[in-house]
C-alpha cells in the first residue's frame, strides 16, 4: 500500500469512511434521523458533540486535540480513526497481543482497552511521538540495526513497550523472573530471561524475538551499538 500524499487527504478519507459507516448504521436503526445526522456531521466542527458524543481534549505527542466522541470509543480507535495516527496497530483488540501499546503518563498501556474519554489530562505518547524530527529514538534505531521485526505490524507496540521497559528497569521495577527483590537487575545486567518476560505482553507472529531482544540489549548498553545507532543515540542526547 502506498502512503497517502499528505496527512490531510488520509484523514479525510478515513472520516468519509467513518461517516459512511455511521450513516449506514443509522439507516438501520432509525431512518428518520439519517438526514439530520449526516448534515450535522458535515457542518459542525469536530469539537461540538453530537448525540451521544462528548467533547474530550487529549494531549497526544505534546499536541492538544479536542474531539467529540462517544464514551465507548477506545483510545486506539481515536488515534487511528480520528487522528490519523495509524502507527499504533489493532491486532487482537482484546489486550492480548500488544500491537496497540502506547505510553500514558510515561507508563505503557494497551490503548485497545482504554476508553478515550478517560484519558483527559494525561500525556499520551504514541510511536509517532518518539523520534525527534528526523532523529530516531534510540530504541527505534536499535530495532532497525538488529532486525527487530519482519512484517512490522507488531513493531510500534514492541518499540513503545521497549521504551517503557528501559525506564522501568531504571526505576527499579521487578519482573516475575527477578529472583531477589533486594537485588534488582540493572540495565547493564538485564538478562535475556528478564527482557523476554518484560516483553511477554507483546506478541510477534513473525517471531522476530531474537532481534527484539538484541535491540533491547543494545539500548541497555549490553552490546556495542553499531556506528549508525551510536550516532542516533548521540544526536538524541540519550545514553543507556
Amino acid at each position, binding site marked *: 500500500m502506498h502512503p497517502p500524499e499528505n496527512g490531510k487527504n488520509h484523514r479525510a478519507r478515513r472520516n468519509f469512511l467513518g461517516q459512511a459507516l455511521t450513516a449506514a448504521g443509522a439507516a438501520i436503526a432509525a431512518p428518520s434521523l439519517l438526514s439530520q445526522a449526516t448534515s450535522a456531521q458535515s457542518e459542525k466542527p469536530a469539537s461540538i458533540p453530537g448525540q*451521544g458524543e*462528548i467533547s474530550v481534549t487529549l494531549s497526544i505527542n505534546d499536541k492538544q486535540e479536542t474531539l467529540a466522541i*462517544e*464514551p*465507548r470509543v*477506545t483510545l486506539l480507535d481515536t488515534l487511528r480513526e480520528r487522528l490519523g495516527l495509524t502507527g499504533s496497530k489493532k491486532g487482537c*483488540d*482484546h*489486550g492480548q497481543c*500488544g500491537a496497540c*501499546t502506547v505510553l*500514558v503518563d510515561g*507508563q*505503557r*498501556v*494497551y490503548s485497545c*482497552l*482504554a*476508553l478515550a*474519554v*478517560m484519558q483527559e489530562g494525561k500525556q499520551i505518547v504514541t510511536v509517532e511521538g518518539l523520534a525527534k524530527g528526523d532523529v530516531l529514538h534510540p530504541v527505534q534505531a536499535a530495532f532497525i540495526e538488529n532486525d527487530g521485526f519482519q512484517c512490522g505490524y507488531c513493531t510500534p507496540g514492541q518499540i513503545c*513497550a521497549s521504551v*517503557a*521497559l528501559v525506564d*522501568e528497569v531504571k526505576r*527499579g*521495577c*521487578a*519482573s*516475575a*523472573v*527477578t*529472583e*531477589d*527483590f533486594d537485588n534488582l537487575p540493572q540495565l547493564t545486567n538485564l538478562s535475556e530471561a528478564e527482557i*523476554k*518476560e*518484560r516483553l*511477554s*505482553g*507483546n506478541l510477534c507472529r513473525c517471531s522476530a524475538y531474537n532481534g527484539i531482544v538484541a535491540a533491547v540489549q543494545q539500548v541497555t548498553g549490553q552490546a556495542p551499538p553499531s556506528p549508525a545507532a551510536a550516532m542516533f543515540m548521540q544526536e538524541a542526547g540519550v545514553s543507556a
Partner: protein
Amino acid sequence: MKNFSYVRATSVKEAVQQASTDNNAMFIAGGTNLVDRMKVFLDEPSQLIDITRLEMTRIEPTGEGLRLGALVSNTAVADHPEVRRSYPMLTRAILLGASQQIRNVATVGGNLLQRTRCPYYYDTAFACNKRELDTGCAALTGINRIHALLGASDQCVAVHPSDMCVPLAALDAIVEVESSKGKRQIPFTDFHRLPGDAPQRDTTLEPGELITAVILPPAPFAKSSVYLKLRDRDSYAFALVSVAAAVELADNRIKTARLAMGGMAHKPWRFTEAESFLVGKAANTETFQQAAELALQGAKPLEYNGFKVELAKRAIRRALTVSAKGGGIV
C-alpha cells in the same frame, strides 16, 4: 460495544450516590477486563461511573499492616518496598499475573472483580448459567481442562482467574466497601462466593457497593512466603493451578502455615485444614506431601481436568518446600 453514558465522579460519596440511582450503572477504573467484556456484549451497562480520579490511590501503613487504596495499580503494589519485604507472595503473584501493560492500569479493586476466563462464558454461542441463568453449562460436558476441582456446582464449574487474590486469601486480607447505605468490611475469604445455584454472582458485594481499599493485616509469618504459578505457556497466561504458601519455622518445627490456591475453584481456595495439619510438624517432604493429599482429598475432577489433581499436589509440595527454605522464586 453498546453505548453508555459517562460520568466522572469526583468523590466516593458522589460515585456511590450516582450508582444508587441506576441499577445498570457500573464503576470503571482500569477497565482491562470490563472494556474487554463490553466489546463482546457480556456487559452492557447503561452508564459507566469513572472512579479513577478519586482519592483511593495510596498505600498507607495501618498499625503493623498496610492499607492498599482500591485505585492503586497492580504495578505500584508489586513494587512497593514494604509489600516486597513483608508480603513477597503478593508481589510475586502480581508480577506473574498479566503483562506490564495490564498491571500498569489494573487496580487493586478491579483485580478482585475479574470474571472467569471460562471460554464458554465468553462465547455466546454456548450455554452458560453465569452469563444467563438457567441456560445450562456447556463446560460441564465440554473441554473442561482448566475448570474447577473444588466447590463447583452442577450449574457452574468456572474458576476465578486472579493471581493477586490467592495471596490475599492466604493473608486474611480485608475488603473495605462503601455504598450510599454506608461502609462495611468483608473478610477476604468471604468476598468471593461459590457458584451454587447463583453462578451469576461472583462476590458478596451488594448492588451499588464500591471497593475502597484492601487491608493487609500484619503477617510476620509471610517473610518467606512464595507464589507458584503453573500454566500452559511460561508467561502472560492464566494459571492451571497456582499456590500461595507461607511456612514459618521455630525450632525446626512449623510454627505457622498458610496455603491457598488459584485455578481450583470459583473463588481463591484457602486450605485451613491442611494449614492446621502442618503446625507443629517437621518441615520435610513427607509432611508437605501429606498436607497436599489432605488438601486435594475433596477434589472432584471433570472429564478433562483430572491432571490438575496431581499437578496441584506437586505444586503445593514445591511451594511449601521453597517457603520453608527461606522463600524466593519457586
